[in-house]
């Protein structure tokens, strides 16, 4: 009978079958005498086994995976923090929300965007708004300014802005003097001696002080007017605060159109106006300047900047 005739060639080998008889013929020899002594001698000469690994083999695979995940998350967090701290994310235009924003998003307590910290009257100087937002106000200004407290708070904010402008003005003057001296030195021209420079600075400072004195007088006069109106229970208007009439929408639009033009085109547009229009615009501009500054007894220094608008 061939293997193909066997009902199941892979069936277990039955003892006594021809295949079993054949396999039983494969006998194994005995272990040689003295084998045990050889093994014992080899065991004695065997070096001591290595110590146990530091990592305990009983630690479960799940914990090892969790440990690697934790290390990976911590590394990623450290790298992300370092990238955010060094400004790398900002360079890559990746927005990182603040913790307050994330918390508000989670809890749903987000403040409506654009809500003003303190509602300033519409007539308040625009430049005073940032200062008011940064400095906690003792008095909240709500609606039109019609109480002495609100008026005092307005004066305080205006004074803050004016002080900042005076300081900036002096810084610009120093910068211009230094750059002019440097330009002359680079061009090989004569530079003023320290005495000449001191005299120049003294003259500029004198004119500056006179200018601020005139502005202070104008401000004091206007503030007296405003205080009287508030004491009478009247609400202040924009004209009361700024000291000038607001330009008409047409005039404002015309100024804006001219201001937005490049200098060459601005001159050409000015020339293209009719004489009546040029005269009207010049009168409006002169009126604005007259309101902004009282008549100056002396020449305005070159380094001067526009006066504070109140």
């Amino acid at each position, binding site marked *: 009978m061939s*293997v193909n005739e066997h009902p199941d060639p892979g*069936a277990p080998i039955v003892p006594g079958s021809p295949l079993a008889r054949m396999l039983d013929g494969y006998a194994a*020899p*005995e272990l040689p005498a003295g*084998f045990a002594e050889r093994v014992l001698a080899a*065991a004695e000469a065997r070096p001591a*086994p290595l110590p146990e690994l530091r990592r305990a083999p009983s630690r479960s695979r799940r914990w090892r995976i969790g440990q690697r995940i934790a290390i990976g998350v911590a590394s990623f967090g450290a790298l992300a923090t370092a990238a955010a701290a060094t400004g790398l994310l900002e360079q890559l235009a990746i927005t990182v929300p603040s913790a307050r924003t994330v918390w508000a998003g989670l809890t749903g307590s987000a403040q409506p965007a654009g809500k003003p910290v303190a509602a300033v009257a519409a007539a308040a100087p625009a430049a005073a708004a940032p200062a008011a937002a940064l400095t906690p106000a003792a008095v909240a200004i709500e609606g039109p300014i019609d109480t002495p407290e609100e008026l005092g708070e307005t004066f305080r904010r205006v004074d803050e802005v004016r002080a900042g402008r005076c300081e900036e003005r002096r810084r610009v003057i120093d910068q211009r003097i230094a750059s002019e001296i440097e330009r002359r030195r680079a061009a090989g021209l004569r530079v003023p001696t320290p005495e000449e420079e001191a005299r120049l600075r003294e003259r500029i400072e004198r004119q500056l002080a006179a200018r601020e004195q005139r502005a202070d007088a104008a401000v004091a006069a206007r503030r007296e007017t405003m205080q009287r109106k508030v004491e009478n229970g009247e609400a202040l208007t924009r004209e009361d605060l700024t000291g000038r009439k607001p330009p008409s929408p047409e005039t404002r639009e015309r100024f804006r159109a001219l201001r937005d033009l490049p200098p060459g085109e601005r001159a050409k547009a000015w020339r293209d106006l009719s004489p009546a229009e040029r005269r009207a615009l010049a009168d409006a501009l002169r009126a604005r300047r007259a309101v902004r500054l009282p008549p100056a007894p002396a020449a305005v220094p070159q380094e001067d900047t526009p006066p504070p608008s109140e």
Partner: protein
Amino acid sequence: MNTATDRAPATISAPPPGDDAAWAARLAAREPAALREMIARHGAALHRLAYRMTGDAHEAEDIVQEALLRLWDHAPALAGKHPPGSQAAARLRLGGWLQRVATNLALDRLRRTRRLSGGEVPEEEDNAPLADVVIAAGERDNLARAAVLALPDRQRAAIVLTYYEELPNAEAAEAMDMNIKAFESLLHRARMALRQALAAQGDAP
């Protein structure tokens, strides 16, 4: 040389539960008497296994010695994992551990020999002069030896473990680091190959 009567591992009596853990503890304590006892208990069975895997008595001795020395080396770790009196101690079977080590050592040596020689392991010639009385037995021995050694290594291991050492399939699969289904498939193919070899010899199974 033993005859077919050495097929069954009747000489290895099943140790009482936890007994092997005590022996492992003694081996870990570096007692030569414990190693001698292990040689007496398991040496012969390991040698049969190795010899039938390799077909070489000297190679088989080396494999048995190496397996016993590995037991000597790993005894502290085994004793640590299976302290006497614990539940793990009842599961420790040093015989099975040694069979697994010896099987893997034999497979490794066969693989290495084939890689070095670039072909099948040549059947070793027996140059000893044969007496007339053993001619017939020798022919039968050579026939069986050739059939077993012609099997692929893992199929040979499956036949040696289950037929000659009479291990249950589950324990044989464990000794070869296989799952039971894969082992049974391997054993099925080995039996088929043996029956084909026997049919090729002209003897019906």
